[in-house]
């Protein structure tokens, strides 16, 4: 157990070194919020991967595949396909027409204050929900891995570290923490996958043969169960299950392109072409990782069988213990921590940037800094406040099952953020009312539908709200995404905004050519 602690402390020391190095370089808003726009394509690609592959991906999907087989793999597929939306639709125009935040693209030709206020609200909601899910996960993980460390200590530790990265190191430190984590995660998954395949004599035939006949004794009933884990339908059963699967797919494929912490990564590169290439690098890393979930997910199913995994989320670390002993278990656990740290750092800087740039400077102070460097100062304070809030919420929600919060973040991103972004980019007639309606309806509908769903409501004692679920799906996307789009379109059609239409020519020229785009800082 202490090996895990030492490995993790080494990682922490290394990231603090990165932060110290970044803090010495960081000067000015472009440096703080966008790493001087000098990040290279491969670096940003790995950083996107590091920002994106959360504990939910690593621990969550491994567990899902180990218990639900093929249906768990559906998450892997969706998480990767989502990057085509980012690549084809969002990344380049965003880089060309924005400055620091997601709202920049909306505010370009619409009325800045209402649009930014709504977008900042949506950003804060998405990032804080997502962050709480990560931090509660971190706390529970520590409890299992390091019995000596309490839940509170783990949550506070993660929170303090993310605050240090963001407050002192800004985007540059966050980027390098994410790159380090992405490399560690890929290396850990590759080692785990090779070790699994070694058990099957490196033969795919043997491997899949075993996956299709997994036999174990159910600890509850004492009966022998044989399961084909390649068979679809273990998690998404029946008609509602099928609709839920499609709904999940919608949230993943459209939500990724609306996640604020992913979008702001495109401002860290010099131009749109680099933004495009960085998506491709990210896809290589993410694609490789999600392909490997097959090996360690199914590996856990066959080598451990569900009977020997007490906690679904511990599938990957337990598989590491089984295959590589204590040291490898320690390494994989440290990788899982690194994963959480890098993701929460990305979320913190996204939330604080949005607060400082969108809300403080542009909504409250009409787009002007009252003194030089004010925006960065406010962002640093906001990062501190966001971090502290997340720590308190994570401690307060310690015994709650918060896994649904990640799904909620994707649903809000897909239903509230994406429709206005897409419409602002491609529809001349789009306007402020449309953006506000879209953001508002998308936000409210996804939150309300989740509250009424089986994730929150249930008749057994564990549910947050007692009672039969009113909405049958766990993923609200299939209803809330069309609602978000419809509200944005109807809102736009109900009002006319000539200034927004007049600026469309300028906006499309900028978005498509990069004319007048934010430049990289000089060396």
């Amino acid at each position, binding site marked *: 157990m202490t090996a895990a602690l030492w490995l993790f402390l080494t990682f922490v020391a290394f990231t603090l070194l990165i932060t110290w190095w970044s803090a010495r370089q960081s*000067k000015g808003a472009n440096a703080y919020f966008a790493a001087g726009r000098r990040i290279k394509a491969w670096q940003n690609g790995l950083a996107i991967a590091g920002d994106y592959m959360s504990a939910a991906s690593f621990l969550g999907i491994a567990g899902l595949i180990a218990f639900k087989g093929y249906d768990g793999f559906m998450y892997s597929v969706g998480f990767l396909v989502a990057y085509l939306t980012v690549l*084809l639709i969002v990344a380049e125009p965003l880089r060309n027409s924005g400055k620091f935040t997601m709202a920049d693209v909306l505010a370009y030709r619409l009325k800045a204050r209402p649009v930014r206020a709504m977008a900042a609200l949506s950003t804060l909601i998405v990032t804080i929900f997502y962050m709480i899910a990560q931090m509660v996960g971190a706390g529970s993980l520590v409890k299992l891995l390091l019995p000596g460390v309490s839940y509170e200590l783990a949550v506070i530790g993660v929170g303090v570290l993310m605050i240090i990265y963001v407050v002192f190191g800004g985007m540059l430190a966050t980027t390098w923490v994410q790159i380090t984590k992405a490399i560690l995660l890929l290396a850990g998954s590759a080692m785990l996958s090779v070790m699994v395949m070694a058990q099957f004599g490196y033969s795919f035939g043997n491997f899949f043969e075993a996956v299709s006949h997994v036999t174990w004794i159910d600890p509850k009933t004492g009966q022998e169960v044989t399961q084909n884990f390649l068979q679809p339908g273990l998690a998404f059963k029946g008609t509602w299950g099928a609709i839920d699967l499609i709904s999940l797919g919608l949230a993943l494929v459209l939500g990724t392109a609306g996640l604020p912490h992913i979008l702001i990564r495109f401002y860290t590169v010099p131009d749109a072409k680099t933004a495009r290439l960085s998506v491709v690098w990210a896809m290589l890393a993410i694609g490789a990782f999600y392909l490997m979930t097959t090996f360690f997910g199914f590996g856990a199913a066959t080598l451990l069988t569900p009977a020997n995994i007490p906690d679904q989320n511990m599938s990957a670390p337990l598989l590491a213990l089984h295959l590589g002993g204590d040291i490898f278990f320690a390494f994989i656990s440290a990788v899982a921590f690194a994963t959480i740290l890098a993701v929460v750092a990305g979320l913190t800087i996204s939330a604080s940037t949005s607060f400082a740039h969108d809300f403080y400077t542009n909504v409250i102070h009409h787009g002007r800094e009252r003194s030089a460097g004010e925006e960065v100062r406010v962002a640093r304070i906001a990062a501190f406040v966001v971090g502290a809030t997340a720590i308190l919420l994570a401690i307060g929600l310690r015994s709650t099952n918060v896994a649904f919060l990640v799904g909620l973040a994707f649903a809000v991103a897909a239903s509230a953020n994406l429709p206005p972004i897409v419409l602002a980019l491609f529809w001349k007639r789009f306007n402020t009312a449309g953006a506000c309606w879209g953001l508002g309806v998308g936000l409210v509908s996804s939150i309300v539908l989740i509250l009424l769903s089986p994730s929150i409501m249930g008749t057994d004692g564990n549910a947050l709200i007692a009672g039969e679920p009113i909405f049958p799906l766990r993923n609200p996307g299939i209803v809330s995404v069309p609602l978000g789009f419809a509200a944005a379109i109807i809102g736009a059609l109900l009002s006319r905004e000539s200034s927004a239409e007049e600026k469309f020519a300028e906006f499309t*020229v900028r978005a498509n050519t990069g004319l007048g785009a934010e430049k990289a800082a000089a060396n």
Partner: protein
Amino acid sequence: MPGGRLQGQSRMVSAQNAPSKTDGDVVGPGRLQWFEALLRLKRCQTTHAPRGGLYRVSNKDLDLTTEVSAETDVSRIGRSGATPSHERTADEDLNVVDWDRVAASSDFETLVKSKARFLIPATIFFLTYYFTLLVLVGFFPEMMSSTISWLGPVNVAYVFALSQFVMVGLVTWAYLREAKSFDALAAKVRSDALSTGGNKKP
């Protein structure tokens, strides 16, 4: 309010001057700071009202210009905000671009059309391919469980899921290939717009 701003500014200037204090002693740093602070104040009032919103003023950062240049050098006051017009490059002075004319130029129209010609079908294709998997797996799990004879236990569902990875690779590869021509066209539109202020006859 103006007083507050003035103080903030002069504090900043003195902080910047600190490293080169010995060099500046000849001129008298105290007076210089006031002069600069005043100039800064003036600039804030006169030039910080960009006509087109946030993006016209690209850099409101702390001024990072080194303090070693001659006192008369205007750029010393700042790279941010308004540089005197004679010092601006066309690229910096975005207002010289006639956006409507660029938007109407034939090169730009070709760019937008050729992008749409690739991106719309590509997006429809990948969404269809992806949701076909979800619909088939969700509604017809039995059918999708049928195995393929030469693949042993591996079933149609798993092969289809793996093919999504291949599909993502192919669409990305195709886009990267197409994007070369988009980049070339975009570069042409940019250079035309900046050399003629967008006033070139289409």
